[in-house]
């Protein structure tokens, strides 16, 4: 039953956009995780981790629950012989099958939100709007329909747990939280404060905590003998993120996340409440604080934020000013996308097209001719992350029960404009730049080398040369771009640029540039007019200057050391380019872009 202010068109619009994004965008992780699950379907239960790693070079890093769920979901694949063994990569329709499972759970989670909203007293109409707002939250929608991950497994179970929490069914509350923990440990961080808010008896608290951990412990005991499990699951680096932000006391570093979370738990314990309304307001307030602490004070991955969405939405619907939180969601999405496309360049940005339905048009490689981060311009991650953290804390702190409605069922009909604007505007923040990148990538020439992020200038080119080695991907070299430093002066020098075969030093293209025409920090463009090159060999671009002095010279910009780049983005494609400075190969690139096209 559709009730005003929601209209049929709202659901249709959601459905159309969801289907379009479902088919168009996808990140590659799901192929690894769902692909690993075939180990179970091959009958390798207790040696699952070792079997996948040793036989198929696939190293699972989650607890068994995730792979078991996928194994059950993938039974048809196995039965029909579409996929029969663990495989790292999958065909488009197989990926969509994998994606369908979390997406279905996402939709059911919307229903659970409706149920929870009803239980805490919002009334049917408001509860429906609340569920719609959950489903259309830009960050959650992005996480599920574009990034396409499976954090929803945890959320689905957590929502079931919360539903029974408000139904006062403690056993099922514990059960569903217990099932959720092996999927992602976050749920434990919510379970404890929720438990402490209701339960004040120490023995019962201990009992519940032990019970909630049983499934995790069971899985741990079953697989602790596996070296791959110990290395990849127990040694999964992301769990240490909570220790980054800390206070150094001299002897140790005190984790702010742990301390703040501990304080929230204590607050929950010392808070004595009576009414269902109080419980609802305090529960969502404390959960929002926990979310602010774990995502605001430590590093996060884009898909994890889905975990926060139900609490943000339900909390906002208990607030006397729901509208402002809907507006803040838009701002959050903007900051979130800027952070994501900058932190995971060529990975979680326009690259999500690669595994979608249009991936074949760009040969599963959208390249980096135009990146989403170029469109967003802002690259200062400290500023972006600061704003995001502040927003997380604002969204949490100002949901304190004193700012909440006394009557939870108070209508939010007047917010419908913002609900629609938030959905369409929020999604546009990602989709529009992504589509622009796709169009640019779909027309030649294509970028084969894009060392764009400058760190500093190299030493002045005074009677010396620097070079950049690269391997072409196509047959025609169209354009070279490089970034120069002129020290804000007019330099009367001549810059010689030669493109040579790296091994033979055979020159394939040569030109000179008058140094006085160069501007400081300029990306200089050289159109080669289409030079034939061989993608199977390495080439070198030599930048040489045979005159100049300390006060009359230019230099080229360079990137950061590569280890650092790779550390930040382990999934970056292998880079085969490097700079040569003072005759020695360096572990960085010159800031050079190479544009090529097919013959």
């Amino acid at each position, binding site marked *: 039953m559709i009730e005003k202010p929601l209209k049929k068109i709202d659901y249709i619009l959601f459905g159309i956009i969801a289907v379009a994004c479902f088919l168009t965008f996808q990140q590659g992780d799901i192929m690894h995780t769902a692909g690993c699950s075939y180990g179970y379907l091959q009958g390798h239960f207790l040696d699952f981790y070792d079997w996948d790693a040793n036989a198929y070079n696939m190293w699972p890093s989650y607890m068994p629950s995730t792979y078991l769920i996928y194994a059950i979901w993938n039974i048809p694949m196995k039965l029909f012989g579409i996929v029969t063994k663990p495989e790292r990569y999958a065909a488009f329709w197989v990926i969509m099958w994998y994606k369908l499972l979390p997406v279905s759970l996402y939709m059911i989670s919307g229903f659970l939100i409706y149920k929870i909203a009803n239980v805490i007293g919002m009334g049917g109409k408001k509860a429906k709007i609340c569920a719609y707002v959950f489903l259309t939250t830009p960050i959650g929608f992005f996480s599920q329909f574009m990034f396409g991950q499976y954090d929803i497994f945890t959320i689905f179970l957590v929502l079931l747990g919360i539903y029974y929490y408000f139904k006062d069914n403690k056993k099922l509350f514990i059960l569903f939280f217990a099932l959720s923990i092996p999927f992602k440990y976050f749920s434990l961080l919510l379970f404890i404060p929720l438990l402490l808010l209701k339960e004040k008896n120490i023995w019962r608290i201990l009992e519940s905590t032990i019970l909630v951990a049983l499934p995790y412990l069971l899985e741990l005991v079953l697989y602790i003998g596996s070296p791959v499990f110990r290395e990849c699951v127990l040694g999964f680096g992301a769990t240490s993120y909570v220790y980054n932000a800390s206070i150094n006391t001299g002897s140790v570093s005190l984790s702010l996340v742990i301390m703040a979370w501990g304080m929230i738990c204590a607050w929950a314990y010392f808070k004595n409440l009576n009414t269902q309304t109080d419980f609802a307001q305090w529960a969502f307030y404390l959960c929002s604080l926990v979310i602010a602490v774990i995502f605001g*004070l430590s*590093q996060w991955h884009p898909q994890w934020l889905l975990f926060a969405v139900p609490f943000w939405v339900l909390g906002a619907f208990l607030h006397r000013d729901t509208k402002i939180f809907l507006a803040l969601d838009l701002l959050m999405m903007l900051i979130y996308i800027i952070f994501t496309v900058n932190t995971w360049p060529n990975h979680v940005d326009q690259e999500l097209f690669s595994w979608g339905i249009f991936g074949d048009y760009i040969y599963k490689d959208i390249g980096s001719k135009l990146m989403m981060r170029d469109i967003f311009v802002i690259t200062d991650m*400290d*500023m972006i992350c*600061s704003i995001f*953290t*502040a927003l997380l*804390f604002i969204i949490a*702190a100002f949901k304190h029960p004193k700012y909440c409605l006394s009557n939870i069922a108070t209508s939010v009909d007047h917010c419908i404009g913002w609900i629609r604007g938030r959905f369409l505007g929020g999604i546009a923040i990602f989709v529009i730049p992504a589509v622009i990148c796709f169009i640019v990538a779909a027309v030649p020439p294509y970028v084969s080398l894009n060392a764009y992020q400058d760190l500093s200038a190299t030493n002045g080119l005074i009677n010396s040369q620097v070079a950049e080695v690269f391997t072409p991907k196509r047959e025609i070299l169209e354009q070279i771009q490089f970034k120069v430093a002129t020290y804000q002066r007019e330099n009367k020098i001549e810059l010689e640029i030669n493109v040579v075969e790296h091994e033979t030093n055979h020159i394939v293209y040569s030109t000179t540039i008058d140094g006085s025409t160069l501007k400081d920090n300029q990306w200089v463009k050289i159109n080669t007019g289409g030079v034939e090159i061989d993608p199977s060999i390495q080439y070198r671009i030599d930048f040489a200057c045979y005159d100049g002095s*300390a006060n009359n010279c230019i230099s080229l910009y360079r990137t950061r050391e590569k280890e650092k780049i790779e550390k930040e983005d382990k999934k970056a494609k292998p880079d085969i380019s490097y700079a040569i400075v003072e005759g020695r190969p360096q572990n960085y690139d010159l800031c050079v872009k190479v544009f090529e096209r097919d013959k």
Partner: protein
Amino acid sequence: MSAGWELTLKVKSINKKWKLEKPMTFLDVLLFFMIAVICFFTFEHSDILHTAGSSFGYLNGHFLDFYEYNGEFGLYDSYMPITYLTFALWNIPLRLFGIVTEPTQVVPVFVVMWYKLLPVLLYFLSGWIVYKIALEMNMGRKKAKICAYAYLTMPIGFFSQFIFGQYDIFTLFCMLLGYYYYLKGKNKYFILFFALAIPYKYFALLLFVPLLMLKEKNIWKILKSIILVGIPYLLQYLLYYNSEVFKEYVLGFGVTGYAFAAGLDTGAATISYVIVVWLLIAAWSYFERPDQKAGVIKWSLFLVGMVGFCIFGLSQWHPQWLLLIVPFFVLSAFLNQNTKIFMIIDILWMLFFVLFTVNYWYGRVDENLILYGVLGEKFGSGISYKTTMRDILILKDMNLINSAFTFLLLVSAVFKHPKFCVKEFSQKVDDCMGWIRARFLGGLAIFLVPAFLCFVTALTPPFMTFKTEKPYEHISGMIDRKVSQVFIPQKGVVEKIEFMLGTFRRSNDVTLNIDVVDKETERLVYHEELNMKEYDRDTWITLETGGLCLSPKKEYRIDFSCYDAAGDNCITLFRTQDRKNQKNGYVIEGGEILPYNLCIRIIETN
């Protein structure tokens, strides 16, 4: 009638004429003006020479190419155009009478005083606006007057205006007008004056947003107001965006990065405390709904105080910036149940402020402020040669000093929470007058007494008669090369020559020849050879000349030469930035006069 009785009557009549009410007396006003005039003429910082000097670019008709044109004179401007435009208007008489005709930093002292007069006048006008604001807050005339006086005599503000002599008052003046109309409920003027304030210093935006959101809860109206307030800034930005100098020096002005220095490393990025706290304050102002005007007054001052703490307590600041929060801290102190304690805290605040300033800006914002005042000529190039303020004030632990400063800011902000405020804003503060006076005199004494001691000791020989600006860069390797610095002795007997040596972080086995030559006759008057092997770090070298007698006011040349060096075994010297109109000295190399100095100090006796 006794003389004492006559004096009392006279003071009473002046009090009446000036409409002064007890506990304030004519003497308070007289004392303030006397000290203000003395400080006005005695101290000044050199920044105003650059800023006001740059404004002549506009008066020479260079409007759109203003930044480039000034660059031709070695003046690279880092503020938005409005500051230079304001000074350009003020400087029209100087240009008309031909006293200053082009962008320059080299001007006579009376011109410096003319420059300084503009911000000082605005400072006084700001006192009047504080009075009007206090009236608007229903403090009553008497309390409002005391409040304005407490603002004018607040040591940090007074220092910023009369001693440091900067122009942050442009921003503050506009902000105070904006705040006045904010309280009067005239939203348009509130936005207008804040819009004008922002291009002077961006700080105004950080106050505007929480103030706006405290009153306005409609999201579209908030967005509209924020867009409107940004228009003057955007207009100036668009006009000059194509200028390379503007992009580099104004948009790339490093101090805006201070907000990111204090942060929490989460692994992915460093979260700026300033940004997070400021956004939380802004959000707080949105969610707070004061129902009456009194509530708006209390909350607005509290939130502005918190912003002040956030900006100056959690990031680096420059001494003159603190003026921007002074009136708000004073006004909120006058609404607090315990005004007196904040007057006392102001003295402590001044103490740590001065300690920080003279230590952090050693050689610039300390006794050196005398150099650009009317007595500056007496000291030639140096006043700090024998005694410095930081030596007199002893305490040098900057972590301790800054922690205390931040703590005091936090206390001054947090305990102004509305729950600590008086119910009746007109509640008397007469009992605070003693502390207001002590705060003024005691607070200023913290700076003035050590500065005066430095002044006295600097009047006795030997004197630093020649001192070039701070090192800018080295002049590249001294390999078979001679570089000369020309200087003019002031006293006649050179005791020491100091120069800054660069070693490229290695020990260089070379000999540096230093010759002092009469520039006119080429007569060698002093020769020294120094082996450089013992130096492996850049350092100042002191050459004891043993009382070298030279003719004052005549040009001499110090020739630095080195003929036994190679690419990986050579030293260098440091130079200053390029400056046109070098009056007192310059560098010669290969017969060519260059527009900079070597980094050199010359110490002479009579």
